């Protein structure tokens, strides 16, 4: 769709976006760079010099005065527009500037009688027209440029905030608090009851935490490292659920070096335990498989649970996984959830095989 033409720019030019004080404080508090000031000043002095060269010698002194005044006025208005680029400020600045120039022009015409058609009159008029154009165009440029700059910064800040929130969510999603809490509760009971399962449970939980905590701040990690965390997780759950959970983990050596976004496999396995094992009266088996196929990585998590409910939608975990897969591989990766042939549910990820 082509954007519609904004006709209002003809009579009311300038940036349409109005920034709030808060937005300006966040993204527009900086001063113009010294380079920018130097370039503007140099151009203005060069223009002025050329005008003086083109005019009669007698006009040098008054014109220098006018140029200096226009320069100061131009600079002040430009600085205001820099701090708060808006159509309204641009209009007000331009009106004041042009009115000032007209006043000076009228004064000059009054003092020196310049006959119609004379060279002197043509020169004076062209100098004022050039000055008016220079100032208004310069101000327009400052306002538009600065508005774009602030807008871009605000957008960048919003994206950063979103990424940060997402990272926080992921961190929270990776070690589920209720998993930790319920595991610690079981552990506490077994320690008090002097149950022999306390020691292996503590070992598995420690292993899980050691393998999981470094996952957060890395964009990718080797599948083999993630599989280690998954193994410890399954071991903790097997101790808690007893013979209701059976599991197998088959990671091909070639697949173990594949780089994947962290937490992906773990999320699928957590889902399989929650929806495929715990709802079953006599429990179920979970099979985790990773292999390479025609230069691609294939990850599968299969459970022997009730299968997909008709019309089931992605939960938070799965939706997160899709987002992260897309962030890492774009549309070169897929995540599918299906009913398995022998009952239960199978989650399958295919992704490009990339090694570090």
């Amino acid at each position, binding site marked *: 769709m082509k954007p519609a033409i904004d006709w209002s720019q003809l009579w009311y030019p300038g940036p349409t976006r109005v920034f709030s004080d808060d937005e300006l404080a966040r993204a527009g508090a900086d001063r113009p760079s010294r380079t920018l000031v130097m370039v503007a000043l140099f151009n203005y002095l060069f223009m002025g010099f050329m005008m003086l060269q083109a005019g009669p010698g007698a006009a040098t002194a008054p014109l220098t005065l006018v140029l200096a005044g226009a320069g100061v006025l131009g600079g002040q208005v430009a600085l205001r527009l820099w701090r708060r680029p808006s159509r309204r400020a641009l209009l007000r600045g331009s009106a004041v500037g042009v009115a000032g120039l007209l006043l000076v022009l009228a004064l000059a015409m009054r003092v020196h009688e310049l006959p119609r058609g004379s060279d002197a009159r043509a020169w004076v008029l062209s100098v004022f027209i050039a000055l008016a154009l220079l100032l208004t165009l310069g101000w327009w440029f400052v306002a538009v440029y600065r508005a774009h700059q602030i807008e871009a910064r605000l957008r960048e800040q919003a994206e950063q905030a979103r990424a940060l929130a997402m990272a926080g969510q992921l961190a929270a999603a990776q070690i*589920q*608090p*209720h998993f930790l*809490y*319920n595991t610690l*509760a*079981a552990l*506490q*009971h*077994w320690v*008090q*009851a002097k149950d022999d399962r306390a020691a292996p449970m503590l070992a598995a939980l420690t292993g899980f935490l050691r393998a999981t905590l470094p996952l957060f701040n890395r964009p990718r990690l080797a599948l083999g490292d993630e599989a280690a965390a998954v193994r410890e997780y399954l071991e903790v759950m097997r101790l*808690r*659920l*007893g013979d*209701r959970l059976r599991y197998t983990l088959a990671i091909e050596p070639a697949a173990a070096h594949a780089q994947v976004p962290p937490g992906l496999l773990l999320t699928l396995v957590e889902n399989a335990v929650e929806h495929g094992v*715990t*709802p*079953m*009266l006599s429990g179920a088996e979970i099979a985790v498989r990773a292999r390479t196929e025609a230069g691609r990585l294939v990850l599968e998590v299969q459970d022997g649970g*009730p299968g997909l*409910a*008709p019309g089931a939608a992605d939960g938070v975990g799965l939706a997160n996984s899709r987002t992260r897969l897309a962030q890492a591989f774009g549309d070169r990766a897929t995540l599918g959830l299906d009913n398995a042939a022998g009952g239960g549910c199978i989650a399958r990820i295919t992704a490009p095989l990339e090694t570090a």
Partner: protein
Amino acid sequence: MNTAPVTALIADDEEAPRAQLAAALAQAWPGLQLVAQCANGVDAWDAFLEHEPQVCFLDIRMPGMSGIDVARRIDGRVPVVFVTAFGDHALAAFDAGAVDYVMKPVDPTRLAQAVERVRPRLAARTGAPAAATLDPAALQALLAQLAGNVRRPAPLQVIQAGVGKEVRLIRVEEVVYFEADSRYTRVVYESPTGGGDALIRTPLKELLAQLDEAQFWQVHRSVIVNQRHIASAVRVDEGQMHLVLRGRPETLPVSRHFQALFKGQ
């Protein structure tokens, strides 16, 4: 004064919290007799019918039937205390008081409070109704609302029964009644092409959770009947009732717990 020990049932699908609750109860309620420790909702309901405990401590998330479903079936006959896991928000909407609950791992002080609240509501063993803090209809409404928050399996459509060398597919709506038969379940059905009966391996208590409650009524610990086939309920004498079925000679027993289904308005 009744000196017989108070009986209780506890249910949790994980062994450690179940054992922890049992240990905590032994402290908070000396003399309480645990008559059943169950690992899922299906077993909990069956054990309730079998042992008739005076108080139940139920985990919410359990396979087969949730603790809330079990509580709905118990229907205020005895006090129920829910035992919820950390992060389980199913009960968060309710102030303590409407529904009794304790968090896992069970804190001795909190459990002692729950026990103090439950004690005055205990039914006498003679079978007098318990003094409920909440009227039964309100409790049912609360539990129904809670049950909406807990996932349950899709209702069963077709039953596969092996008869000799063939596998018969019986549509659930054609079933007249189910009857527990030691480790099996006898399915009696009528279809346009003829009826019959077949044995299936699924225990009755597991079938119960997969059937539509409105259509299939449990009338006895070992009988579930399709209500469309009930002709009448006959009170034989004090505490005894049986069902007469449409067009069938056999009668089905209705146990004491389920006689309220047939009030005769």
